C-alpha cells in the first residue's frame, strides 16, 4: 500500500534538488537541462534502486554507455585519456542512483527500505516498470548526451523486480 499517494512528497522539484546536490558534490558538475528531443528509445544502460515498505517504488537513471563513462570519470576525477574498466563505470552510476534514492527516501514518512543499486544493460533490461506510475522525471544533458532520472511508484514492487 502506498502512503499518501495523493500528496506524495516526491515531485519534480525535490528530485531536481537532489540531482543538483549529487551532481555538484559527487560529480563536481553543474546540472544542465536537456533541450534536445526527448529520448524515447530505452537507454543502453539503466541503474536502479528500489524502495520498499510503506512506500514502494523505484529510482532509475538511464543513459548511453558514453554518458555513464563520463559520469564515472567525473566521480573518480579521471583524466580524459584514462579508460575506466566497465565494472567501475557500472559501480559509479550505481552509486549515483543509490545516493539519489537515499535522498528521495529522506522525503518519505513511514518505514521504507532502500535496496542495493543494480545496473542493467543489453537484453536483461527491465521494461516492466513501464506499468508503474511515474512520479517524477527529468532529462539532463551530460556533454551532449541525455541522462534521464526517473522515479516510479507501484502498489507492489515485486512486479518490477527481475
Amino acid at each position, binding site marked *: 500500500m502506498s502512503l499518501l499517494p495523493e500528496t506524495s512528497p516526491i515531485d519534480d522539484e525535490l528530485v531536481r534538488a537532489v540531482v543538483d546536490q549529487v551532481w555538484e558534490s559527487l560529480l563536481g558538475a*553543474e546540472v544542465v537541462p536537456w533541450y534536445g528531443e526527448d529520448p524515447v528509445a530505452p537507454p543502453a544502460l539503466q541503474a536502479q534502486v528500489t524502495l520498499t515498505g510503506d512506500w514502494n517504488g523505484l529510482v532509475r537513471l538511464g543513459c548511453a554507455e558514453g554518458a555513464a563513462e563520463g559520469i564515472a570519470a567525473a566521480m573518480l576525477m579521471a583524466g580524459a585519456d584514462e579508460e575506466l574498466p566497465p565494472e567501475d563505470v557500472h559501480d559509479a552510476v550505481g552509486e549515483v542512483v543509490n545516493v539519489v534514492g537515499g535522498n528521495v527516501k529522506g522525503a518519505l514518512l513511514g518505514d521504507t527500505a532502500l535496496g542495493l543499486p543494480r545496473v542493467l544493460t543489453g537484453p536483461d533490461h527491465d521494461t516492466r516498470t513501464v506499468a508503474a506510475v511515474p512520479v517524477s522525471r527529468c532529462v539532463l544533458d551530460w556533454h551532449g548526451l541525455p541522462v534521464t532520472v526517473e522515479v516510479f511508484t507501484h502498489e507492489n514492487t515485486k512486479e518490477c523486480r527481475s
Partner: protein
Amino acid sequence: MSIAPEAFTFVRDLVRRESAIVLDPGKEYLVESRLTPLARHAGEGDVDAYVRSLQVRHDPVRSRQVVEALTTNETSWFRDADPFTALRTQVLPELAKARTNRQLRVWCAACSSGQEPYSVVMTALDTPAVAGWRLDVVATDLNEEILQRARRGTYSQLEVNRGLPATTLVKHFTREGASWRISPTVSAPVTFRPLNLMRPFPPMGTFDAVFLRNVLIYFDLPTKRDILRRVRQVLAPDGYLFLGAAEMTMGVDDSWQRMPAGRSSVYRIRGEER
C-alpha cells in the same frame, strides 16, 4: 599529494604572516582544495602554477584572496547536527513549558554568513511545542561584509550542499538561477547586526537561548571569562547556552552548569548565580 612542498611552504608562511593562523603539515590537501577554484578563476593550470605566479610577482589582491580562502571557515547548515537535535527535542519543549507569553528570543553571537540563525529558525518551525510562537533571532558578527551576505539569504549550490537535506532545501528555499534564496518565513524572524564580542554589548534585551559556538576558541582566557560573564547578563535565568563541541565553560567561568542534551551538552546558569 599533488601540491609541491615549496608551494605549501609559501602559502603557509603567507597565511601565518597575514592572519596568525598556522597551517600544520598534513593540511596540503586543504590548501589544494581551497585554492583550486582561485587557480581556475585566474586561468592558471593548477594550484602550483597559481602559487608560483604569486611568488614571482607580489599581488596584494591575490594574496588577500589566498588568505581568505584558507581562513574563512565554511559554515554548514545544522552544523554538528546534535545541538539542533537538542534544541528540537529538549530545549524548545522545555522553554515552551516555562514561557506563557508564547515568545522566544535567541542570540547567535557569531553568525557568519547566516547558516546558524536560519538553522535555528528552521528547527523551531519543525518543533510542534512552539508552533505559532513569536520567534526573534538576533544574529551578530564582527564582519559587516559577511552580515550583508547573511541578510541577502542567497546561497550557491555548494553552500546549500553543506548539511541541507534536499527535503529541507525545497521546503525553505526557492531557486533563483544557479542559487537558492531562503524563504521569508525563515528570514523574517532574524535580525542581523554588527557586534564585537570583546566590547560591552549594546542593549539587546534578554535571550532564552544563546549560541556562542566555535568562537571562544579564538580568545585568550581572560577574554573568554569576560565574554561568558557578560553573556550571563543577557541570558534569562532559566535560559540555555550552546557552545562548540570542543569548548566548555569549566575552568573558564564556573557559574555555568553543564547539562547533557542528547549526545551534546548545553549550559545553564547555576542556581546560586541566577
